[in-house]
């Protein structure tokens, strides 16, 4: 057990800090959350800056255009950018953290050359077409059908909870290419396609979240033609292709937010000190307990990252443990904040109220807490499969 960083890692941190200190003041103002084109331009501009400075696709393999950084360097990157208040990955999320790594791992040389460089440069934005109205956490129940017609698949169906759909150029789309029958498990007939969002037959309808903003959308697919060459991995093998990268999502996707939790907690403590609530021992102890939770989340992250480093890349099952704890703590943090801030808790104009509202999705998105508990029970603890 060694939490010290190597000289290389320290050098990397120092260079990154210096670059952030130099670069962040030059950023334009952040666009209003409802301004989607503005958000796309802002996020892609930031990605371009990272690209030009040699930080794009940090943890991607070098032969995919990435920097081949170790998981620890990636951890340092996420930690330092969050600490410095740098922009969040934003619109680049699916491309950089999911679709890109999937194509890097499973794509042909042609596919990698076509799709990876624009993701890294911030030229193209991806969205994720996994969830469906009748298949949420039960992803394998998806029904969107793709029927082969010559050199194309003809895709019909609909997707939901698709973040960034309005501004995306591409969609990583899971489709059913073989019918479900008694002989084959339902996850065996799924394929992974890269679908252009401007193809005829694609309709995007934004959904309003409980926070009042449009963060995701419904996507309707009416006989959309997707070239067979846009299939990543074998036909009917899309489930495995997807699982390769879903574990990445649970491994390090929330690093920045753990750092943010600690920052929010410290700000809350200072606010409580200033407004007198700090004298309430119950509230004070509650904040102290949250500090312990934040420490544990950070150490769990370090544990998962160093395990990934040792096993050669893919984070282990610790991701589900982390996500369960993180999503809960994040919500508890904002509940405590409401108590510290009193009347401000009801002022929807406050930025942290928006954060509080958006944290409500954490126990649902990327696999509900209930599904995560099933995963932990069945895959880690080896309990018999439930029904």
């Amino acid at each position, binding site marked *: 057990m060694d939490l010290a960083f190597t000289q290389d890692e320290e050098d990397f941190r120092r260079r990154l800090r210096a670059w952030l200190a130099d670069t962040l003041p030059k950023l334009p103002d952040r666009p209003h959350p409802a301004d989607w084109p503005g958000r796309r331009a802002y996020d892609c501009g930031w990605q371009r800056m990272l690209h030009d400075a040699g930080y794009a696709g940090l943890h991607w393999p070098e032969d995919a255009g990435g920097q081949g950084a170790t998981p620890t360097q990636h951890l340092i990157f996420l930690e330092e950018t969050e600490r410095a208040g740098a922009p969040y990955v934003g619109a680049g999320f699916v491309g950089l953290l999911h679709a890109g790594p999937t194509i890097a791992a499973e794509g042909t040389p042609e596919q990698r050359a076509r799709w990876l460089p624009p993701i890294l440069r911030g030229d193209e934005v991806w969205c994720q077409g996994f969830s469906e109205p009748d298949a949420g956490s039960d992803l394998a129940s998806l029904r969107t059908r793709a029927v082969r017609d010559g050199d194309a698949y003809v895709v019909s169906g609909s997707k939901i909870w698709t973040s960034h759909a309005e501004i995306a150029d591409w969609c990583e789309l899971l489709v059913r290419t073989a019918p479900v029958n008694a002989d084959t498990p339902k996850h065996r007939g799924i394929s992974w396609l890269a679908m252009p969002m401007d193809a005829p037959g694609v309709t995007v309808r934004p959904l309003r979240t409980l926070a009042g903003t449009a963060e995701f959308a419904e996507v309707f697919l009416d006989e959309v033609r997707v070239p067979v060459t846009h299939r990543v991995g074998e036909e009917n093998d899309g489930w495995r292709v997807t699982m390769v990268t879903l574990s990445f999502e649970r491994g390090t996707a929330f690093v920045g937010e753990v750092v943010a939790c600690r920052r929010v907690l410290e700000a809350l403590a200072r606010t409580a000190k200033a407004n007198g609530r700090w004298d309430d021992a119950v509230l004070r102890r509650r904040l102290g307990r949250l500090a312990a*939770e934040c420490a544990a989340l950070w150490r769990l992250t370090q544990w998962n990252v160093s395990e990934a480093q040792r096993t050669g890349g893919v984070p282990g099952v610790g991701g589900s443990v982390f996500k369960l704890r993180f999503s809960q703590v994040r919500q508890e943090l904002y509940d405590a904040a409401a108590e510290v801030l009193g009347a401000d808790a009801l002022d929807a104009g406050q930025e942290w109220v928006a954060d509080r509202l958006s944290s409500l999705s954490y126990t649902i998105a990327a696999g509900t807490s209930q599904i995560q508990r099933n995963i932990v029970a069945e895959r880690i603890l080896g309990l018999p499969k*439930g029904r």
Partner: protein
Amino acid sequence: MDFQLTDDQRALRTGVRELLERCFPRTRLRAMVDMADGDGAERGAGLDRALWRGLGAAGLFALRVPESAGGVGLGLPEAVLAFEEAGRALLPGPLVATELTAGLSVPGALAAGEWAADAVRGEAVVTALDEGDALDERDAPVKEDALVEHLASADAVLVLGPTAVEVIAAEAVARSAEPIRSVDPATPLHRTAPYRTARCRTAQRRTAPERARPPVVPPGASEALGLAARLRREAALLTAAQQLGSACRTVELAVDHAKRRTQFGRPIGAFQAVQHLCAQMLVRAESARSVVYAAAVTEDPGDIAAAKLLADEAAVRNARDCLQVHGGMGFTWEADVHLHLKRAWVRAGQWQSAAAAEEELAAGLLSTVETCL
């Protein structure tokens, strides 16, 4: 950064687990518990001296003692791994106090260390009296009373006062202590009153009874302040490590039971309600593990407070959930679940309480200049 265990650390953990399976199997735990199950003032089993010497000979108390002083020369992370195993096996006895006292045996570092040298070898049973680190206006410890485990079996007591670290003969403390009916049948407890204890200690020094040996650090010595603080932190961490071991063990007990026990024609582990109890137990244990191990590496007071807080919670809550998974069987004397829960309660009350840990962590939020996650 490589937060994973080294091969040597894994080997150490396996070695300690095998040692404990050999010298303290479940049958021995149960025999001890049943022996203690009588009533009377001295409820609670006496400590098994042969077992204690065996643990000493195997190096359990000497892990952190330098090789030059007859120890193994390892660090706090290794001690934490060993104590995690001790917690897993519900190994009884004042393990933490004896280990800390053994650590005071470094030659030349302290005035006298005969108890310490004996502790290293498992020849002395040393328990602890934590008087807290707060003083009132008369310079007396604020803590109203304190519980001392295994006092009747102990040779010596490591006393951590607000300004002093002492190792004194057990009789000196026993004179002013009263046994209570300990909730944990394997951990007999005495209640002490600090003022009386302090008077007894003064008397003991004046009369210098033949068997009493000099204190390790005389009260009031300036270095004692730092030493007391360090020993308190290490005590909290080693206690947290035992809680972690217990928390992990109850996950295993619950999962084993859930796989074997059938109801309505299926193993109860196939029911989502049971699965989710077990999953939450693992999440608690792994969260505690991450911060206990980190604290062992950093020795940072905040990390240690977080470790004690989350490990206490993991041990207590996991034992309760384990009991729930066991259903009616969990409520019986025969199942081991209650032993884990009762020991977890005892340990949660030792060293840093939840309230103290939360206050320390809260204070840390205000003192942070730069985010130091």
